[in-house]
């Protein structure tokens, strides 16, 4: 492969510089010889490739909604060079074989690193531990385990899981939703709007109560706990308290919870149906603050593609979830950087360094310097565009950002030295 020379990019915290890529790694730019492809990055910011801790690739099982190919293509467009693929596929990723299979799909079809997440419990049933150890030992090297989609409601199971993964530096990622306070039908933040609209309520307490319990268990077991898609102020308060106590808990927030509020569901459009639900302003404010000050460590998209026929139902019947890979950086840029809450160095931490660290991905979230793997995204902070859902690389169209004017930052994504996405100039 020919060398790639990126000219004049603004390295976050490092000033303008050239980047030379050879055989999938950065080398000293002064080493450039004549035969080299060039990419003009004048006016662009270079970030380490983004890492998504929480993606649903739907393969195996729902290839009509998304595949590893289409999902990672969407990831590449969003500036991601690695995605963690959640276990709620069909079959569930709860064995070493299943994890190795997903990893192999990634190797064959992926436009980014595909790292399978292993289920915590067999079949996501929340009763018995899945083969966590074997998944960790498999070629997939699973380190993040989650029953996402379902809450690990049994305190004893959570304890066992947290204890068990300590042996191989694993982390349990909890989808916090007390099933007795917010059952399977709960689909709208419990408050004024759910009362008016006659939609089953999903109270903030259902999330915060589980997190409060789990940080106690994490303290007891001295294990690593990660909280998926934090959506409300109460949860932020619990995590802040836990971190102050030295409990080893990390947290992520999804882009939609940084910008969209519960008032979006007033028209009963299932595009805005997501789990956990969109919350009122005060919660959006709280998670933004938490992301800015690091209480929330990472942005994770919870990219959840759905075939049209799974969304075009009555609100209460429709599938939960929104697309997110292609628009994540744009939303974070708009809500956090353009508003002055955060600078680029913090964004790099939240969207690349910390996710890579939590997932223990050695080759991601690295500095952009000689010797490091060439995972980089070039970003134009000023570009803007109206989101067009039909232009998506995803096979699905459940896009809550359609028609909105947002930043359109990603100019080029380079994964292991190969350009996986380049915007037409």
């Amino acid at each position, binding site marked *: 492969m020919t060398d790639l020379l990126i000219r004049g990019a603004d390295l976050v915290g490092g000033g303008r510089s050239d980047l030379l890529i050879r055989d999938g790694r950065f080398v000293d730019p002064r080493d450039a010889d004549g035969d080299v492809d060039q990419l003009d990055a004048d006016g662009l910011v270079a970030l380490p490739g983004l890492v998504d801790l929480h993606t649903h690739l739907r393969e195996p099982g729902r290839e009509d909604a998304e595949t590893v190919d289409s999902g990672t293509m969407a990831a590449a467009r969003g500036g991601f060079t690695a995605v963690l693929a959640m276990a709620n596929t069909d079959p569930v990723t709860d064995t070493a074989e299943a994890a190795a299979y997903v990893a192999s799909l990634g190797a064959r079809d992926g436009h980014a690193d595909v790292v399978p997440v292993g289920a915590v419990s067999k079949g996501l049933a929340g009763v018995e531990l899945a083969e966590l150890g074997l998944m960790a030992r498999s070629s997939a090297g699973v380190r993040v385990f989650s029953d996402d989609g379902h809450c690990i409601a049994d305190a004893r199971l959570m304890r066992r899981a947290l204890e068990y993964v300590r042996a191989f530096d694993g982390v349990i990622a909890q989808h916090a939703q007390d099933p007795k306070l917010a059952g399977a039908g709960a689909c709208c933040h419990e408050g004024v709007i759910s009362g008016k609209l006659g939609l089953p309520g999903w109270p903030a307490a259902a999330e915060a109560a589980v997190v409060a319990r789990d940080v106690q268990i994490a303290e007891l077991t001295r294990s690593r706990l990660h909280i998926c898609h934090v959506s409300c102020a109460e949860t932020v308060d619990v995590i802040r308290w836990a971190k102050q106590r030295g409990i080893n808990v990390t947290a992520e927030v999804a882009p939609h919870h940084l910008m969209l509020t519960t008032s979006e569901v007033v028209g009963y459009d299932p595009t805005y149906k997501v789990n956990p639900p969109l919350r009122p302003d005060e919660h959006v404010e709280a998670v933004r603050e938490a992301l800015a000050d690091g209480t929330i460590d990472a942005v994770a998209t919870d990219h959840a593609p759905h075939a049209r*026929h799974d969304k075009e*139902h009555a609100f209460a019947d429709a599938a939960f979830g929104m697309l997110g890979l292609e628009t994540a950086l744009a939303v974070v840029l708009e809500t956090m950087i353009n508003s002055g809450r955060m600078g680029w160095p913090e964004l790099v931490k939240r969207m690349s360094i910390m996710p890579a660290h939590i997932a223990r991905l050695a080759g991601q979230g690295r500095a952009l310097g000689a010797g490091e793997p060439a995972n980089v995204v070039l970003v134009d902070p000023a570009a803007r565009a109206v989101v067009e859902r039909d232009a998506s690389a995803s096979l699905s169209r459940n896009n809550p950002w359609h028609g909105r004017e947002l930043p359109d930052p990603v100019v080029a994504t380079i994964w292991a030295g190969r350009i996986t996405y380049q915007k037409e100039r």
Partner: protein
Amino acid sequence: MRHLLSAADLDRDQITEILDLAEEMSLVQGRPVKKLPALRGRTVVNLFFEDSTRTRSSFEIAGKWLSADVINISAKGSSVSKGESLRDTVLTVAAMGVDALVIRHYASGAPWQASRWIDAHVLNAGDGTHEHPTQALLDAFTIRRHLRRSVADQSSFEGKTVAIVGDITHSRVARSNVLLLNTMGAEVILVAPPTLLPSGIDSWPVLVCTDFDQVLARADIVMMLRVQRERMSGGYFPTPREYTIGYGLTRPRLAAMKPGAAICHPGPMNRGLEISADAADAANSLILDQVAAGVSVRMSVLYELLGGAE
């Protein structure tokens, strides 16, 4: 008027017009030829995703007495389980060339979603726990007649107090009535145990009371809501006995009602649970009047939606 989805779609003048028209429509019932040609050649489909013999036949008769062609489609059983999306079901029906779709659905919001997908007029016949606008209209029709009977020429809701008692959280009848009665100027008091009051109720234009007896002396109309025994499995109240003693329209409560006050119930009733047999059959019970009002009010609404130029 393109659709009737919510009781909030109507202002006071529109409501009055619909009720006045319903008075005229109620005369049809007594005629040898129970037909008015106003909707001749119009096709109305009752698309019911939830069982309801009473409401469905009420709409059916209403449409037929206006000479419309009425078709009943039962889409019961979750469309999700049958694999057909709601959108596909609605579009398929609309593609047959219907003028109006009367939709009853077990999920809140379905009629709104349907109205975005098709051109036909959409009439909400009850969506989940959200709204039931024609029920609120027939309740208002019945209450207005009662008010006119008690004081000649009086038909204003201003200054009147309506107490709605029961499972407010899960009641579309309550929601629509709160909206409509407010528009008409009545004072609304909701009475329920705290577990059956919806979230965010402080923002509703109502008074809330968890003590039924306090409210009795004040209420001109006592509207009892059906409480489902299934709610007990959700732990909303401990036993039917406790519910009846706390929130039922028992014989002592019937006696404590304000002179001239009347009783309503959207039906079907759980005699002995939320309403005693005495109250159901009392002289001041308007329950049967409500049933009779259903057809007239629905004729009126169908005429308003379909009787003029498109």
